């Protein structure tokens, strides 16, 4: 099972390389643009933190760590392809049919389809370098256990974002004709935060780590891993636990929706007065 999945990731990488290298100019421009775009997004909070030395209880360097963590999550999400961001489009436009005629389990197709490793490496590299640099500045003891927790939290943040987007995207199973843009709306709801959430009122903070879990994509894990602003201890397990819960919810919704889809089919491609 794992070998087959890796084989399909390898295939995704090959298709990504073929697309990126269509022309030399495109490869250079795409890579540079991606790098400048993401660097620009990090710059504002870093400048604020550097100007004032801190944001709330977060030292400037810790803010850099949090942003670098968020950049790593965001780039890995991009690398994993389009399905979390475009699930409602797949459902509403009947594109799931294309996946279902492939002799692969659907989970594997959704996981590996659109894998784009050559699109995301500049931002991931930047994220890793900045995380390493800021952790060093904060004198974090990068023991194997700490690195393991960092990796676990990174994976958990990715699962949280994917599960959130899937759970929303699944609504399209029940309302496919007018709901193709649900995933776009959901992706605007949840994204990595540019500022620490500590100064935010408690009630809003709770919302931002539960119903709209933006806080789990960088703020809470970074706070726990760096032990800043009162974080630490068991906090480091909050994001992984949330990932399990949200993942289970998304999986249940997806299965229910898919079962319905097998009964109803996609309206996009049936012959009763819908657009083709």
């Amino acid at each position: 099972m794992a070998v087959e999945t890796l084989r399909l990731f390898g295939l995704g990488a090959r298709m990504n390389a073929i697309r990126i290298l269509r022309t030399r100019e495109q490869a250079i421009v795409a890579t540079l643009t991606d790098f400048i775009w993401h660097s620009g997004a990090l710059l504002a909070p870093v400048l604020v933190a550097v100007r004032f030395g801190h944001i709330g209880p977060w030292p400037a360097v810790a803010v850099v760590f949090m942003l670098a963590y968020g950049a790593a999550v965001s780039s890995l999400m991009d690398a994993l392809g389009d399905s979390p961001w475009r699930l409602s489009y797949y459902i509403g436009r009947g594109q799931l049919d294309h996946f279902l005629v492939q002799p692969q389990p659907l989970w594997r197709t959704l996981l590996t389809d659109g894998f784009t490793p050559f699109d995301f490496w500049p931002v991931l590299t930047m994220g890793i370098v900045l995380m390493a640099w800021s952790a060093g500045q904060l004198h974090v003891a990068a023991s194997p256990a700490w690195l393991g927790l960092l990796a676990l939290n990174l994976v958990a943040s990715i699962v949280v974002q994917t599960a959130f987007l899937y759970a929303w995207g699944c609504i399209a199973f029940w309302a496919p004709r007018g709901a193709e843009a649900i995933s776009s709306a959901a992706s605007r709801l949840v994204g990595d935060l540019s500022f620490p959430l500590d100064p935010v009122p408690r009630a809003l903070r709770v919302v931002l780590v539960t119903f709209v879990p933006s806080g789990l994509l960088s703020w809470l894990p970074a706070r726990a891993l760096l032990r800043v602003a009162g974080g630490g201890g068991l906090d480091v397990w909050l994001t992984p636990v949330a990932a399990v819960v949200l993942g289970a919810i998304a999986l249940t919704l997806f299965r229910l929706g898919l079962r319905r889809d097998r009964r109803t089919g996609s309206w996009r491609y049936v012959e009763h007065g819908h657009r083709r």
Partner: protein
Amino acid sequence: MATVVELRGVHKSFERRLRSATFAGLLRDALRPRRETVTALRGIDLDVEEGEIMAYAGPNGAGKSTTIKLLAGLLAPDAGTVRALGADPVRDRVRYVGRIGVVFGQRTELWWDHPVSATFGWRRTVWGIPDDVYERSLAFARDLLGLDPFWNASARELSLGQRMRADLALALVGEPRILFLDEPTIGLDALVKQEVLDAIRTLNRERAMTVMITSHDMPDLEQLRARIVLLNAGSIAFDGSFDELRRRLGDRRRLVLETDSAAAPALPGTTHLGSEGGRHEYAFDALATPIPQLLAAAAARARLLDVETHRAPIEDVVADLYRDWRGD
């Protein structure tokens, strides 16, 4: 011959929401949604034998695409059983779809920003096709459908005809046992359509491939010399050969007379379709009105300069049938 597709008492219906265009109607629909049930298939029974070409036709909404989707494992029936190659297409999907080829005429499986060749490589990996089978089937498909001129072009640069040829070739890689083609000739020009139809015939003749094809294009289907199954409102209304279909509906013919007068002579047992100068066209059923009798009647009523008779185009025959079904 073995039965490769078996449908028994298959029933499928869909629910459709009804919507209003007025403000009051919209409010009412929001509070109390109105729905209607559309029955796509009404308990159909159908067998397809190995090595057969089966044309599946019928008016819009008759249930053709629904059947193909059931057989491609994309839909489950509400009642009845669907078996193909000994498998349940939905329950055994992963194993089953590896042994069939599916082409939807209005959709492409080609990777849009990639060379055509890259999509074939993608299919080889995703379908897990062994090297020898891949090389053999690819060489056959490339040759059959003439892919060489655009093998390294991006899919987005292809014409519709080239895209369809590439999609059909893609479905052949891995040597599927059944090929499901949903409107494969839609939008194609006459030449490309001919090439695609020739390819289907060759596949069936040389590889004994079972082909199930839906189309609205009756002359195309007749060219394939296929068994034809006509669906009407979710039920099978006809199952047989094109010759049988013509016999069933009467031996519909056209008569074209050229006379020295612009006035069309009235001929009993015919329908006058139109005149252009001294050229007059009639439709008639040769079983009810024998040709010698008709020609004698025409000669008695006008001075004939030229006479032609030919069979009515199959689409006219079927259009009449559809009109009968609709109650026009």
